[in-house]
């Protein structure tokens, strides 16, 4: 597999917009995906993820803006792009009369690969997908087998960029794990652009993410950076008694930096906009009420917390 992009980003979207009549699916999306990463493209159902992927794969045209893949404009050099990408749609459609091997060999021939290369790659990919012993026709495959075959066919050309549209959304836990393990095994060998609304999957395999909401990118960063941004805003304060907690909550109410406060028995769970001020004022408020502090903790946030904050917070 190759990672060569000639110095260009694997994906670069600038002001990308797509409308279907009055419905705006993508609204001036700007996004850069660097080569070699496993990149998660997060968003709720209907956020515009599939539309963006369809444009990147040359299946749809943007209404405005540009989409570049591996340094090529997808609308002008779609064949050059297709030669170097692998694409797995959310529901891969195979010819039901072919076997898994025939499907891979057919895909390889469409890339102009010679027979020996096609055979060698098909062997390796069938092994990787756990389908080496599958001799039945694809029409009789389970959803999990079809999805794993979908991933295998997307890799037949050794793509520089692999684009996966919701590869795990309809799978059972075992099928999901198998597909995620396949994706994780590609790290460092190719760029993976992976759309999903399943946050746990993205958190498990991706290095960086972009969050798409109502056709707009509301955040784009490495997972560690994104969660650290939110980590600074989550606080847990534990006091000696329930009464102390209630009194301190009253004392803190209305402070400018306090976004939310949730009293759970003797604990206060807070979201704050200014961590430094909160760290200064909370202990003094506790002291002023005469309450006794038991624990003061900056809480670990998950990708889910960030996602909910960005997506739900904007509603």
């Amino acid at each position, binding site marked *: 597999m190759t990672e060569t992009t000639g110095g260009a980003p694997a994906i670069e979207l600038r002001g990308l917009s797509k409308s279907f009549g009055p419905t705006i699916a993508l609204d001036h999306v700007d996004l850069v995906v660097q080569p070699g990463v496993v990149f998660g493209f997060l968003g709720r159902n209907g956020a515009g993820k599939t539309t963006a992927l*369809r444009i990147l*794969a*040359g*299946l*749809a*045209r943007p209404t405005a803006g540009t989409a570049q893949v591996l340094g090529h404009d997808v609308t002008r050099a779609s*064949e050059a792009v*297709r*030669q170097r*990408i692998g*694409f797995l*749609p959310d*529901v*891969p*459609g*195979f*010819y039901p*009369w072919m076997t898994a091997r025939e499907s891979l060999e*057919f*895909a390889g*021939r*469409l*890339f*102009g690969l010679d027979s020996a290369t096609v055979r060698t790659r098909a062997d390796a990919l069938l092994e990787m997908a756990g389908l080496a012993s599958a001799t039945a026709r694809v029409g009789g495959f389970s959803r999990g087998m079809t999805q794993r075959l*979908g991933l295998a*066919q997307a890799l037949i*050309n050794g793509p520089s960029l692999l684009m996966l549209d919701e590869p795990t959304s309809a799978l059972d836990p075992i099928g999901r794990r198998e597909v995620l393990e396949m994706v994780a095994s590609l790290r460092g060998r190719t760029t993976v652009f992976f759309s999903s609304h399943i946050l746990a999957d993205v958190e498990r395999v991706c290095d960086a993410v972009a969050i798409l909401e109502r056709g707009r990118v509301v955040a784009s960063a490495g997972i560690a950076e994104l969660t650290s941004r939110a980590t600074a805003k989550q606080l847990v304060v534990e006091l000696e008694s329930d009464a102390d907690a209630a009194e301190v909550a009253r004392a803190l109410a209305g402070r400018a930096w306090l976004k939310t406060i949730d009293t759970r028995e003797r604990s206060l769970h807070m979201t704050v906009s200014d961590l430094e001020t909160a760290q200064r004022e909370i202990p003094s408020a506790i002291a002023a009420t005469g309450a006794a502090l038991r624990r003061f903790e900056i809480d670990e946030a998950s990708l889910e917390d960030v996602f909910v904050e960005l997506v739900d917070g904007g509603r």
Partner: protein
Amino acid sequence: MTGFAPFLRKELTEIRRTWRLWVIPGMLLFLGVSSPIIAAITPALVKSVTAAQRGVVVQLPPPTALDAFGQFIKNLDQFILIAIIIAGAGVISGERSSGTATLVLTKPLSRGAFVVAKLLSQFLLLVAATALGTAACVGVTSVIFTGVTIAPVMTTVALWLLYASLLVVVMTLFSAAFRSRGAAAGAGLGFYLFALLLSNWGPAARYSFAGLVPAMRDALMGHALSLGWPLASAIAAIVLGTAGAVWVFDRQEL
């Protein structure tokens, strides 16, 4: 036309390994065998039906090889053209709705190659099936009847093949244009009926592909043919229809 050869190979393998091998070739073979037999027994059938009705006397001349070929061509015109419409309606829309078009067209297969490979495979199937059916018809006719002359039926079948090829192109265009197989089939039936009406209108029959329909009758009867305009317009329609199907499909989002 990137990816044309492997996609054409896929199409031909698909014909060999699915229902497509049996429908049109099977129908043509059946009609090739049954048409001479039906022509041979028709007088006896009519006689037995009218014998039960008092006062009704129907006298038919003895059947000939020409009746057998006429029956075959009439059946081609009705059953096979309808089968082409039904089978052709899903040729592109079926790939689109099943998701297979998405998978192959995100590889270096151009949309032009996709459409042209579909057309070529259908032409090859049609030519092979027509040759098989015609050979069966000529063979059975030669066994049942005397005085068989092959040239008129060959000319007639060649004209029918051109007309059927035009219908294949039109169905591919409709299948590219409409997302639904039903809509494509409906449009195809509309085209078939419209062309049939045109063939009965003198000026259209003289100057358009619709003239192939009366030309088939004339060819079978051994009459002189004036095929310039019908042939030229049919070939032009096939070329334009192919270009149109590629153009329409190329502009579609999948």
